[in-house]
């Protein structure tokens, strides 16, 4: 059994190295695989827009590490956002996505939406759990990878690269096509 698993892992690594996965929309490593990723089309702001209700527009928010974005008072006027969706398939032991990164946005976060009495509540989450031999769907109205502060327009047909980190320490590179809102 162990041997089989090891063999499987090796086979997967070979596939990964061979670059077969790279041309597909989702690339796989180890337990969690990504299927059907996509990003919602969105337009970023006009650069240098000064008409925001909040005067102070500091574009240069020094972000040392991603995901650790801290509060900066009231400088949240006028940032364009979008979200990435996908299916996380897990062929191994229970794992989770604990971090997401992408160069298209200033911060990339893991979010969930809860609908209660038809009131939608969006919240940041620490991790997206993926059960052993199970799957989790990131979809509108639920879990998503939130892209905050886009630094370019995301137009239909574009591709967004998102790097996911699992709790087990693996990274998954996802190439997500942009789709219409």
């Amino acid at each position: 059994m162990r041997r089989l698993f090891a063999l499987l892992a090796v086979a997967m690594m070979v596939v990964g190295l061979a670059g077969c996965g790279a041309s597909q929309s989702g690339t796989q490593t180890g337990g969690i695989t990504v299927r059907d990723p996509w990003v919602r089309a969105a337009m970023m702001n006009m650069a240098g827009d000064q008409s925001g209700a909040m005067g102070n527009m500091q574009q240069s928010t020094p972000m040392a590490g991603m995901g650790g974005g801290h509060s900066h008072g009231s400088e949240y006027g006028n940032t364009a956002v979008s979200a990435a969706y996908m299916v996380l398939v897990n062929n191994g032991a229970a794992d989770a996505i604990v971090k997401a990164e992408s160069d298209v946005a200033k911060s990339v976060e893991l979010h969930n939406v809860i609908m209660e009495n038809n009131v939608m509540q969006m919240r940041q989450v620490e991790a997206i759990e993926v059960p052993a031999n199970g799957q989790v769907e990131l979809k509108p109205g639920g879990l998503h990878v939130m892209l905050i502060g886009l630094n370019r327009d995301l137009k239909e047909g574009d591709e967004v690269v998102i790097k996911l980190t699992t709790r087990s320490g693996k990274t998954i590179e996802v190439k997500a096509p942009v789709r219409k809102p």
Partner: protein
Amino acid sequence: MQRWLLRFFAILAALALSGCGAYEFRGTMLEPPNPAPELPLTDQFGNQFQLSNYRGKIVLLFFGFTHCPDICPTALGDLKRVMEKLGSDAAKVQVVFVSVDPERDTPELMQRYLAAFNPTFLGLNGDRALLEKAYKDYGVTVIRRDLPNSGLGYTIDHSGYIYAIDQAGNWRLLWAHGTPVDDIVSDVQALLRNPPRS
């Protein structure tokens, strides 16, 4: 000729669906229909908006914000498809988006955001007190929540209903979030077929 046939079938289908000709709405009807509260707000082009200017049209109303990645774009995407499916009848329908995040929903942002769906969509913003009144009048939940560790800073919890105001300015219907586009189209067509008197 084909159009005539199509229309004939449409009427037949409508009759078949409705039994005695009384259409059953898929959305929730507001009984009795009351005059829809006025929305004395400003659209994304800086023009003063007035609901009373839209008598003779059906107004589809939605409350949301541009930084919402999820419910709002889904609802607006649905409304975009509703307009497409209505075809030439779309000219008798106005989609109106009211901001629940007046600070961030600047006219420029609203312009770009709404244009991505349909350039005829109007996005309203305005004086805080007038907005608060609109939320209350339409029973819309709007709660600002701080997200201390998020690059967003804060988010707005909000209701996801779409409302229909008929040609006489009466608040007639509401659809819960996720109502199929075809159901909305069907209800709008029913309102167009039987315009209210007065």
